[in-house]
């Protein structure tokens, strides 16, 4: 696992509070799990129909009827439970999730997020992502700061089709933690490895620097 991804996941794990009900998307969000402190109890929701998701199943212990939303064999805590997809999305859309963490192709200064299609190129579909972003109380976007070609994924305005408009609350990359406010993005924290100017340079969106800027 790359250090970049680990850094993002680790920082996001600090947003989780005892008792929270959390949905973790595919990719970086999945590994957030690994950094949740053992002294707090978190209910992991998986949109395919369970809450109380535990680790992936060990080899030889796979149960064909227990998978996570990525299709991997999983396990469930002894206080977990299963339900149909209607109930699963009632939980999501009904505001019963304290937090969802999603990856994205782009995210922007207005809290818009794009993660489900690149016109003419890639159309996987939105799956549960549109419901998750609209429904969860807090939406965190886990994202590498730039594309492999060095383009900022933190846009002033997304140009890919949106997953949701204005729903993202917090953006965490390997370089920065940015809060979405009515006045645009507020740079709250920067990675120890970089300085503010480097972050500003690598970010397409305008950043307001928090008076209380921290490192992570």
């Amino acid at each position, binding site marked *: 696992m790359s250090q970049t991804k680990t850094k993002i996941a680790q920082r996001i794990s600090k947003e989780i509070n005892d008792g929270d009900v959390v949905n973790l998307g595919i990719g970086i969000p999945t590994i957030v799990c690994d950094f949740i402190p053992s002294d707090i109890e978190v209910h992991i929701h998986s949109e395919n129909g369970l809450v109380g998701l535990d680790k992936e199943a060990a080899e030889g212990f796979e149960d064909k009827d227990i998978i996570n939303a990525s299709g991997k064999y999983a396990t469930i805590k002894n206080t977990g439970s299963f339900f149909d997809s209607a109930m699963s999305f009632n939980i999501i859309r009904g505001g019963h999730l304290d937090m969802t963490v999603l990856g994205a192709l782009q995210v922007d200064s207005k809290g818009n997020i794009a993660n489900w299609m690149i016109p003419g190129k890639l159309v996987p579909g939105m799956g*549960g992502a*549109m419901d998750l972003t609209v429904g969860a109380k807090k939406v965190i976007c886990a994202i590498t700061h730039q594309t492999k070609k060095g383009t900022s994924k933190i846009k002033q305005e997304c140009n890919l089709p949106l997953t949701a408009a204005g729903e993202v609350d917090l953006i965490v990359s390997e370089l920065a933690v940015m809060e979405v406010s009515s006045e645009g993005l507020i740079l709250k924290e920067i990675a120890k490895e970089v300085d503010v100017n480097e972050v500003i340079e690598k970010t397409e969106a305008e950043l307001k620097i928090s008076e209380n800027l921290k490192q992570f």
Partner: protein
Amino acid sequence: MGKVIDMQELDKFFDDEMRIMIGGFLDCGTAETVLAYVNQLDLHSLTIIVNDAGYNYKSKGKFLATADINNIITSHIGTNPDVGAKMNNGEIEIELIPQGTLVEQIRAHGAGLGGILTPTGIGTKAEEGKQIIEVEGEKHILATPIGADIAIIKAWKADKSGNLIYRHSAKNFNPIMAMAADTVIAEAENIVENGELDNNNIMTSNIFVDYLVKSKPEN
């Protein structure tokens, strides 16, 4: 006539141009035995309603990749490159719907509702062509019912009368689709005598289920 039938009797329920719902999330909770049989019937111009397109090399994903299908109504096809390719070359028309909206549309059909209002998709492509209705100042998409001619669902245990119990995360779309098709065919891993299921735990009542087929044991 009993509801428990042999696979061969399935032929007579299927026809060209039918709308068919298939339960399951990826491969979990999918009626693989029935689908493999249906896939070798010579059916044309199908419309399929399914949560996702699965994997092209097995189970429902193989069915979606190889059967003669005109339309798929679904929330996600990213796991099935063959279906993606057929979409790109115009062979299959894909209607993508947010998963929570899709399941409510299927439920709405089964529940006799004219539709439901959801905030999901407002400000995105998902609202294109949909009626937008404001409730207390908040915009919602009117999502209308989706039904089918046949639902192919998967259960863990069935009694001979057609009561069903699903297991763990294999529930997913199955209990909802069980309400939403003219003919409901349930594949069950176990078919027991009437009275052997705890009727407090039955998730789909026998009144919804028309036919039962036993799963072939996994190889």
